[in-house]
């Protein structure tokens, strides 16, 4: 299989030069390499998306796809791995999607540890709705719904995920295809909820690429939760000029997945027969 087999006939409608193209390339590459390395078969891969610019990846990547609702890529992905734990599920979400509309799913999935990778395309803005604040938009950002500037502080989704029990937490930069691809592969291979926040400046509504450019430094994964939270707290998603932005895998831990905890079997591994045996237990003796 070749990289060109990973595409679809659908015309791409992302803005020219949008970093989403690089996330798409990295995802295609990561999947292709995993197929080549026989980690999984092409058919095993399923992409789940929410709604927003990120969601269009559903139409552009040649794997099984579930184009869900805004904010609901996470629960849909959870359902897929509960139904068939053998699938390789990748949930793609946006920052508005995962951190605003779907925040409860994000926190609770970190806790429940379903076995899939979550890639958040974080451009710190609602882009497909033409520029409004999300929970990771910095204070002061002038969006269309906040013409006087965003009055709210940001949330730190990495620290939040770590606090909530996520077993794999990483951050990458969309423009760094090499590292992004490697981390995507590691996330897909990870057994459990593997979350990668991907910094993806929006060239049309929120271009902070100059800000992040020289601030990033690579870190090594920690097995110590407290130190991982400390590292995650280094940058609070504001545009503080003095900040440094750690990228790479922050934390990785092996613990039972949601499916393992509930002893979930792939539906096709269970033979079901219809009878009244259970009903007969309702007969009064």
């Amino acid at each position, binding site marked *: 299989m070749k990289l060109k087999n990973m595409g679809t006939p659908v015309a791409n409608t992302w803005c020219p030069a949008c970093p989403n193209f690089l996330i798409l390339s990295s995802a295609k590459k990561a999947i292709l390499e995993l197929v080549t390395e026989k980690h999984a078969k092409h058919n095993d891969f399923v992409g789940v998306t929410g709604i927003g610019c990120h969601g*269009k990846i*559903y139409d552009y990547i040649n794997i099984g796809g579930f184009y869900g609702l805004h904010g609901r890529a996470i*629960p849909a992905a*959870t359902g897929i791995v509960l139904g068939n734990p053998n699938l390789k599920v990748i949930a793609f979400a946006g920052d508005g999607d995962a951190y605003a509309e779907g925040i409860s799913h994000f926190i609770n999935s970190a806790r429940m540890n379903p076995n899939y990778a979550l890639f958040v395309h974080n451009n710190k803005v609602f882009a497909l709705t033409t520029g409004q604040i999300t929970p990771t938009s910095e204070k002061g950002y002038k969006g269309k719904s906040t013409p006087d500037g965003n009055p709210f502080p940001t949330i730190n989704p990495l620290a939040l995920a770590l606090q909530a029990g996520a077993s794999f937490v990483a951050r990458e930069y969309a423009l760094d295809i090499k590292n992004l691809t490697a981390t995507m592969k590691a996330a897909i291979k990870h057994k459990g909820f593997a979350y990668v926040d991907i910094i993806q400046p929006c060239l049309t509504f929120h271009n902070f690429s100059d800000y992040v450019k020289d601030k990033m430094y690579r870190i090594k994964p920690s097995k110590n939760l407290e130190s991982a939270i400390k590292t995650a707290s280094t940058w609070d998603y504001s545009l503080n000029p003095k900040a440094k932005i750690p990228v790479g895998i922050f934390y990785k831990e092996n613990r039972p997945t949601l499916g393992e905890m509930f002893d979930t079997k792939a539906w096709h591994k269970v033979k079901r027969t219809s009878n009244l045996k259970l009903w007969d237990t309702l007969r009064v003796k």
Partner: protein
Amino acid sequence: MEFQITIAGEAGQGIARSADLVSRDFVSRGMYVFNYRDYGSLIKGGENFNILRISTKKIHSNNWKNDYLVAFGRFSDHHLQKMNKDGISIGTLSKIKNKVDAYAIARELKAPPIVINSVLLGALYKSMNQPLKGLLKQMEVFGKKAKINQKAAQLGYDRYQGDTKHIIVPKQKNKKYFVSGSEAVAYGAVAAGIDLYLAYPMTPATPILHILANLKGHNISVVQLDNEIGVANGALGASYSGATTMVGTSGGGFALMGEALSLQGMSEVPMVVYLAMRPGPASGIPTYSGQGDLKFVLNAGHGDFSKIVVAPGDPVEAFERTVEAVYLSNKYNALTIILSDKHLAESNYTLDNAPSFTVKPSRFLVKPNKKFKSYKITKDGVSPRAPAGSGLIRATSYEHDEFGYTTEDPKEINKMVEKRLVKAKTLEKAVSKLKPIKTYGRGHDLIVSWGSTKGAIIDTLKEVDAKFLQICYLKPFPSRKVKALLESARRVVVVENSATGQIADVIAENTGYIIDKKILKYDGRPFGHEELVKSLRRVLK
């Protein structure tokens, strides 16, 4: 022969369990018992009670007057006002005529105070002049605690010196089933072959979650997710993976699922929703019953799309309709809603027969070829469905072409909208083969209803000269069949546990027939037998 017992007291005193023991004893001796459970939204303290209507004939409803009242603790005075002539009340409080010092017996046995419930059941049996043997046998379910409860019941029986009102239970030996609507839906779901049940706790749908979670050896995963939105979207994900999946909730949770129901309409991934109604709006009356969600359920989800709504009226139907619901969803990539309520879910019915399989459960999955189209346009509007992983299978919330790619092209849009319209017609045909309506009794007048009111209505037919039309499939609506019956009736009356009689609106919308006679009840309580006979006689006099 017929009589009624109410067992009342404070929540936590074992009222529901005691009612179950007495019910099972009488059922094992060939009697028909209807067990109505009345409890508030609380765990301990406050008043709960169970009504046991017991008869030699088939019954499916309760009355509001008692022959026996057993009160374990504090209870509302209204029970004392609701006694039949010669009715006997037994309890621990001095306001009750036949006071039993049950606590002294508990102390004598060095048993915890809770065993006063068994003492009082013993006293009840003495007052009815019933052998205690069967009740003691039922108490075996207590396991290690059986002995002490049996001793307490025996002492309660031996020492009772109050009023008596003898009952004679005719000898008969046929084994019967004693079933709640919840058990029937849960076991129906298992028989239908579900792989996964997802839910967030909400009364009165929660019993299904508990029953299935505690079921061993069936390899069904039961998972409580973060909220009903997670549950509904999770169910669609699981179903897309190929797993047969069901979810359960009540009105508020169902409202939260609304957007995902609409996603079902677009993605055409099979989905089965069990909805047990309570009276609304909002949090409403959580542990009571009502049918006021009907029009909301029929119209739930934004956008034009088809769905199936089926309302069982008793446990046999609850089982059979649940199997049908799963079957229809799988076969037609459809959304099917099983519409029940607290009354059906949490009452126990005595049944002579087991349900039957009206359809043969199946996954209806195909193996995709290389050029597989997830949304292939077919004659009946139903695209063959392949599970995720068997090929590159797509499901989407956006309008799409046959491959499942997003489209905004007017031609492609029309094709897909029209495919779904054809599917709606197919659903209509499928449902028309599954007894969408049932009629009972005879008479020139027609009683129209649906769901759990069936029990009370059936019981009136011996005393009221009318035919009863039960509408089982509320969507697609069996318009032709219903219209024919309405037009041939002399007078038509709707019976519904709601404030507005919503089924009359649904009938008007689908048949043009206007019904102005309505018997409605909206205090959260079901129709009592004598109460409904009176109302029907008044309306149809």
